[in-house]
């Protein structure tokens, strides 16, 4: 095998592996068969002479045709045949289909799998991330991830999940599941602000996958596409893109967290901000407002500080109010209360915070409560209350970068 062939093969795989797996999964109805067939095709490719390799114009199409043959052989349990590139090149033009990626995404994030497993499958097969990397992102041993992927593929095959577009009545459940999976993947990297380069890479994969999802959905013909789901997919994607636009400014030189309203907005990624704004307009035209779009809109209003010189709290307050009418989640209530502090003043915000029953909150919500409490106390000029709330928050916070920030604030009061 020549170096040139190796390089061509690698480049082809980087660009097309996910697409190939998607098309083969659809063809064979099984992710496992698709993966095995592609491995067989790669093996065959590595045995090609340079003359044979040179005669292949479209390597992705060649791999697809070879893998399809290999898969058929495997399914028939026949002995492996030798691949002849000349013959395969004569196959009718039949290359992996761009739209099959959506089918694969829907299959990987099937709601019958646990969310972590969905995320791992998507990373491995839709984003082509190596197992060792996925293992590090999920704090697991590579063997464990390998086994988990194996079990998941077996379950999908045995329980009759097909690599096809779902029937219209199941569309909502299936796309919602992909969106939740992407959100959790992103949240995991977003909450771990001090995670370093690897966590950043995970967030970027989530962003890329969401862009892929929107792209694939945009190609679907209208009758098969549910507008409210499409608008929400765009909303989630815009949210991730806006989150990524600020990534560089979320930590300062001492690896201490910088809260959103103090981040140096000159360093925010304008290209991503523009892209997200464009996407949100596209979603708004569908006139199907939903929680992801509203959350993205809140991010987008924060991003306007770059142009305005101040944060447009009134718009953020309005978005939170609309979001609250759709979802009573405590974190949204806290966000609304914080926005209310800026728009309606400390007395109003204090009243709103007092109305929240936090007796049964988990630690994450208790932490948010303390942070909002501290902000309101600062607005009221109540130093001792502010100090007490911040001290409680420090104790609840497990993230080192955020803890550093809170401790410095506490010391500065």
């Amino acid at each position: 095998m020549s170096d040139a062939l190796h390089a061509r093969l690698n480049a082809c795989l980087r660009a097309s592996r996910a697409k190939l797996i998607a098309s083969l999964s659809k063809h064979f109805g099984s992710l496992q068969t698709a993966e095995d067939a592609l491995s067989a095709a790669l093996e065959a490719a590595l045995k090609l002479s340079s003359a044979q390799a040179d005669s292949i114009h479209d390597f992705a199409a060649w791999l697809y045709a070879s893998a399809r043959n290999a898969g058929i052989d495997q399914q028939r349990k026949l002995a492996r045949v030798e691949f002849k590139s000349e013959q395969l090149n004569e196959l009718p033009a039949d290359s992996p289909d761009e739209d099959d990626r959506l089918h694969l995404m829907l299959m990987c994030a099937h709601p019958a799998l646990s969310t972590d497993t969905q995320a791992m499958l998507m990373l491995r097969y839709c984003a082509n991330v190596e197992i060792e990397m996925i293992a590090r992102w999920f704090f697991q041993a590579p063997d464990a991830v390998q086994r988990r992927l194996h079990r998941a593929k077996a379950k999908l095959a045995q329980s009759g999940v097909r690599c096809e577009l779902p029937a219209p009545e199941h569309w909502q459940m299936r796309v919602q599941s992909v969106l939740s999976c992407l959100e959790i993947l992103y949240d995991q990297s977003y909450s771990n602000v001090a995670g370093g380069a690897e966590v950043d890479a995970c967030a970027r994969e989530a962003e890329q996958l969401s862009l892929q999802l929107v792209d694939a959905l945009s190609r679907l013909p209208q009758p098969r596409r549910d507008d409210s789901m499409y608008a929400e997919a765009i909303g989630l994607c815009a949210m991730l893109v806006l989150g990524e636009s600020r990534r560089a400014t979320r930590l300062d030189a001492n690896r201490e967290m910088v809260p959103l309203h103090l981040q140096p907005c000159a360093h925010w990624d304008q290209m991503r901000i523009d892209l997200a704004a464009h996407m949100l307009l596209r979603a708004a035209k569908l006139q199907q407002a939903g929680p992801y779009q509203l959350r993205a809109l809140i991010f987008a209003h924060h991003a306007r500080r770059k142009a305005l010189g101040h944060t447009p709290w009134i718009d953020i307050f309005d978005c939170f109010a609309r979001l609250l009418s759709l979802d009573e989640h405590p974190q949204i209530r806290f966000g609304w209360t914080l926005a209310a502090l800026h728009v309606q003043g400390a007395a109003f915000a204090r009243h709103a915070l007092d109305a929240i029953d936090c007796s049964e909150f988990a630690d994450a919500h208790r932490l948010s409560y303390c942070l909002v409490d501290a902000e309101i106390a600062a607005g009221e000029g109540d130093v001792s209350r502010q100090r007490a709330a911040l001290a409680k928050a420090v104790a609840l916070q497990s993230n080192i970068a955020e803890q550093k920030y809170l401790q410095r604030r506490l010391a500065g009061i």
Partner: protein
Amino acid sequence: MQYLLAIYEDEAAYQTESAWTAIIAAHTALVGDMQAAGVMRGGAGLQPSASATCVRTRAGKTSLHDGPFAEVKEQLGGFYLIEVDDLDAAIAWAKRIPLAADGVVEVRATIPD
């Protein structure tokens, strides 16, 4: 593809006559819908788990045990066997199975012939 929909609930929820009548009516309606959709292949409600007998095999010897396989909060109370295109469709039918209170419907594909 054929799927088993196994229903697990707390039997205690069926101690009253009215709960029993209501659930039978709801199941009858569901069976009607399944038949109309042409997916119904079989199914039954089961007698209380206390009436179960387990035939256990240990080291090649069988012995009988009075009572259910495992003492758990939710017991197998009935099942459906349906034939639908894929897991999504099976899940959609499972969601429609009436329960008296909290419970679980386990969806399992059968091994094809």
